[in-house]
């Protein structure tokens, strides 16, 4: 099962390697990881996407909690939440396909953030499904490069974060 876990940590040097070291040292899997400061500058938030059966994910959350610099761990599996990821895709459509490609990007509310004689770079934001669908549709046009931010997630209003 794929789990999105958010980890509130002290904003100190070395914390990222404590977290990533925990995953590598114990053979847990990281699919994506994103980190950023929060409103409170002394605290950072990591969003980690990982896979494993219930027992493994239980171990992951417990082991994360055990780290002294970890303040709070939320597994979004049982929490109503919104999640988003941003992807930048550089595509090189053939001349005849260009307008069709741009239409496709528009349908997905993609923004063209750069273009040149041969390529367009599209910024696309969405949940896992939307991004996967867009990538599949764009693939035939010729993807030159693509980068993704990793997922971030936030609980919906009224959901108690325990």
């Amino acid at each position: 099962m794929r789990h999105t876990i958010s980890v509130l940590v002290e904003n100190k040097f070395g914390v990222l390697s404590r977290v990533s070291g925990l995953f590598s040292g114990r053979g847990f899997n990281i699919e994506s990881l994103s980190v950023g400061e929060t409103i409170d500058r002394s605290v950072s938030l990591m969003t980690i996407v990982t896979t494993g059966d219930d027992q493994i994910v239980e171990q992951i959350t417990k082991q994360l909690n055990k780290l002294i610099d970890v303040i709070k761990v939320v597994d979004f599996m049982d929490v109503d939440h919104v999640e988003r990821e941003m992807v930048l895709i550089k595509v090189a459509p053939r001349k005849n396909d260009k307008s069709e490609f741009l239409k496709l990007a528009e349908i997905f509310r993609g923004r063209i953030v750069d273009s040149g004689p041969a390529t367009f770079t599209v910024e696309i934001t969405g949940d896992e499904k939307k991004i996967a669908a867009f990538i599949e549709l764009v693939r035939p046009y010729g993807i030159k490069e693509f980068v993704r931010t990793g997922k971030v997630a936030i609980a919906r209003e009224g959901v108690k974060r325990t």
Partner: protein
Amino acid sequence: MKMSGAEILIECLKREGVKHIFGYPGGVVLNIFDVLYDEKDIELILTRHEQGAVHAADGYARASGRTGVCIVTSGPGATNTVTGIATASMDSIPLVVFSGQVPTMLIGNDAFQEADIVGITRPCTKHNYLVKDINDLARTVREAFHIASTGRPGPVLIDLPKDVTAGTAEFKWPEQVSIRGYNPTYHGNKWMIRQAAQMIAKSKKPVIMAGGGVVLSGAAKEVKELAEAATIPVTTTLMGLGGFPGSHRLSMGMLGMHGTYYANRAVQDADLLIGIGVRFDDRVTGRTSAFAPGAKIIHIDIDPTSIRKNVRVDLPVVGDVRNVLRDILKVIREQKGQWEAVRKSWLKQIDAWKKEKPLSYTFDKKIIKPEFVVEKIYEISRGRAIICTEVGQNQMWAAQFYKYDEPRQWLSSGGLGTMGYGFPAAIGAQIACPGKLVVDIAGDGSIQMNIQELATAVVNRLPVKVAILNNGYLGMVRQWQELFFRERYSHTRLDTVPDFVKVAEAYGAVGLRAVKPPEVEPVIREAFSIKDRPVFMDFIVDWREKVFPMVPAGAAIDEMIFDEEEKKPAKKLKAVK
């Protein structure tokens, strides 16, 4: 008042109640050593290797219950501590290790004697710090002692760049520690506790399995009270030895790979297993899918990650085991069960197993059996010595043939299995408990891993006794080769080198030797009478002797092999990896 970083550090140590430090100097810790030169309240014990310093601090901590402290220099001094720190980490021993570091300006430049010790020790410490600002020093030390000694204890390392200890700052002692990400659970959930008491009341064939957590939390009294109140037989893990009196009528000794026949049988036949301060290590469970098949499992531990890591658990109780046991006891006592009567047939069954296959060995008149040496040490010390061990057969015989009635009497590297642990640990234990008899039961291989600490023991006039069970082999590995590798003794023969009596004498210690069984007792008695120097006792023992019972790797714990089965075809004993 302005103070130097080194002065601040020592002042912090005093406020933490530190009396002894184990250490080794070097360039970047000179400022600290200079302050220690005039220090009256804290004594630094100079070991002869940084690994020895950490094991000594560890032995000091295990014997006394206080936090052990080390100071070493940067680079090689720091990397030499890694085995000691990992040993303490696996066995949850509270240590604070200070390592020197190159000046903050030079960190990351591959400066002379620079090592990223914070990076290196990250996975084997409970937590670690690099102090970059002298103004953080006092708070960091305070936090480190707090983290090391509370919750599930463990080693904490503080890396101190040279400019931090050489610089000056205002000393401010933080009266309180608050770490928002660190809040161990000390009390068990009320509902879980009632549930546990009910499960105990309903069970017909319960077994208590007591581990190192019992010793660490000071819960030996509570385990005994629970066992007696509800008439429950007790087995301990290697780390739990002394957590329940080995000579108690309800004691079944140790379980696991070299556990007793009756403890392993009882666990496999139990309908309720109460794991207290244990982590269900593979050396204890054998094949987990076949472990305690008929039992419901209650698991009490302060560390939630221990629960359901290795075995299924029916009722987890997270909390300090002493608090949890006290709460369970209250409920059990209200129940007023007629436990003796209810458990009669279960205890009878266990007695039958005890009679069927007791721990045993065959005494020989001509050649010394290692088990005989351990038995004699038990007898002559009247069961009251602090026993340290090395690793291998010596460790298992020390676990099997000495009965530990008190916690903190048994000091052994359980989790990491570190050869070379026992002797420096004995030095630390002797410093913590000057009046006590401290004996390291050693192997001829292991003792050579930290033999340089003889100098430390001699210089400090520590009457530590080392009983070398000299079988001329890396015996435990040889045992596996004999049983599972067709007696191909690849690189396990040590050829009885060196002459341990002469080594001892060269260091200014006493060396004694016993070659024949009748010499064993006089040698032990003479060694025990020496009060001002360490003693090496070199017991030339039967190299063929093996540790039994034995559960081959990958087998269920009731699939034990015994001495008499040696003659059966080797195939049957094939280890499953």
